[in-house]
């Protein structure tokens, strides 16, 4: 049976369309990301009050929480793109999934490292084998596994499929990370932001955090677009429009 999808669905899956649109969006996203990250960092480091128990080490939250959120969102995006690519055989979706992996891995590294640095003065240890920390470490290894599969094959198509399948299987880890602080007794504190409740900290503390989270999302949008555009240039190198783009740049 042949299903007819709306026109925008086909346009969205065209590498050329993506390249053109992302080229227009990139400068604006870059400006917005730089502004949000600058405002959030200064607000968090200089103006936000210190925690009455943790003192100034609390300020690590302004990079720790955004990177941890991003590491998980990026994974979901990678898995969703992988699923779309496998089901509808859309080239751009494979490029998106492939581009997410290294960015997500670096976000997971940031979250784990800043968490360790924060843990030392707060818990007295760099690392504990706690459910939240362990499931985040597994997330990092999943990213490494996906990246390894993507580059392990001579044929790009085989690599695309293998990477997307592992990305999909690894999705089970995401709810484990999310609920690890509720299911198990952990040292890690519960989530700062919940959709259904007000944050437990005062606005002077969580507002800069919100700015940083938005800044990290925009930063992600910028770097993921840069990587997808490279994938487009590389994979569509034989098409005429890419030759024109290459000669003009």
């Amino acid at each position, binding site marked *: 049976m042949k299903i007819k999808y709306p026109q925008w669905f086909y346009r969205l899956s065209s590498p050329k369309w993506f390249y053109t649109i992302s080229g227009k969006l990139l400068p604006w996203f870059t400006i917005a990301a730089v502004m949000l990250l600058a405002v959030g*960092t200064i607000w968090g*480091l*200089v*103006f*936000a*009050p*210190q925690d009455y128990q943790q*003192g*100034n*080490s609390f*300020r*690590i939250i302004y*990079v*720790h929480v955004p*990177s941890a959120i991003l590491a998980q969102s990026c994974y979901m995006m990678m898995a969703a793109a992988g699923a779309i690519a496998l089901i509808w055989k859309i080239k751009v979706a494979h490029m998106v999934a492939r581009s997410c992996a*290294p*960015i997500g891995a*670096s976000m997971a*590294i*940031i979250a784990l*490292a*800043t968490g360790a*640095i*924060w843990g*030392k*003065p707060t818990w007295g240890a760099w690392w504990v084998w706690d459910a939240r920390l362990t499931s985040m470490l597994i997330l990092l290894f999943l990213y490494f596994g996906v990246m390894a599969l993507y580059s392990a094959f001579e044929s790009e198509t085989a690599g695309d499929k293998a990477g997307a399948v592992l990305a999909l299987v690894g999705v089970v880890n995401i709810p484990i990370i999310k609920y690890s602080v509720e299911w198990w007794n952990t040292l890690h504190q519960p989530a700062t932001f919940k959709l259904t409740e007000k944050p437990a900290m005062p606005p002077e503390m969580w507002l800069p955090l919100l700015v940083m989270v938005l800044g990290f999302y925009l*930063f992600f949008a*910028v*770097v993921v677009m*840069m*990587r997808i*555009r*490279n994938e487009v*240039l*590389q994979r569509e*190198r*034989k098409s005429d429009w*890419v*030759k024109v783009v*290459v*000669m003009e*740049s």
Partner: protein
Amino acid sequence: MGQFNDLSEFLEMGGHGLYVWLSYGMVLLLLIFNITSPWLTKRRIVAEQKRRIRRGDSNET
């Protein structure tokens, strides 16, 4: 300014300076890496393909 009286107090972070600056420094490094890496890749791709197009090599693998 803000929560601190002077620059040295800001840098010390109430004794937690090492932890705070180590975290932020690492984040800065990784964010810079995430920008420069695709930027360098693009330069490499464009240079390679320009060479290829100039050679008139259309059936490369």
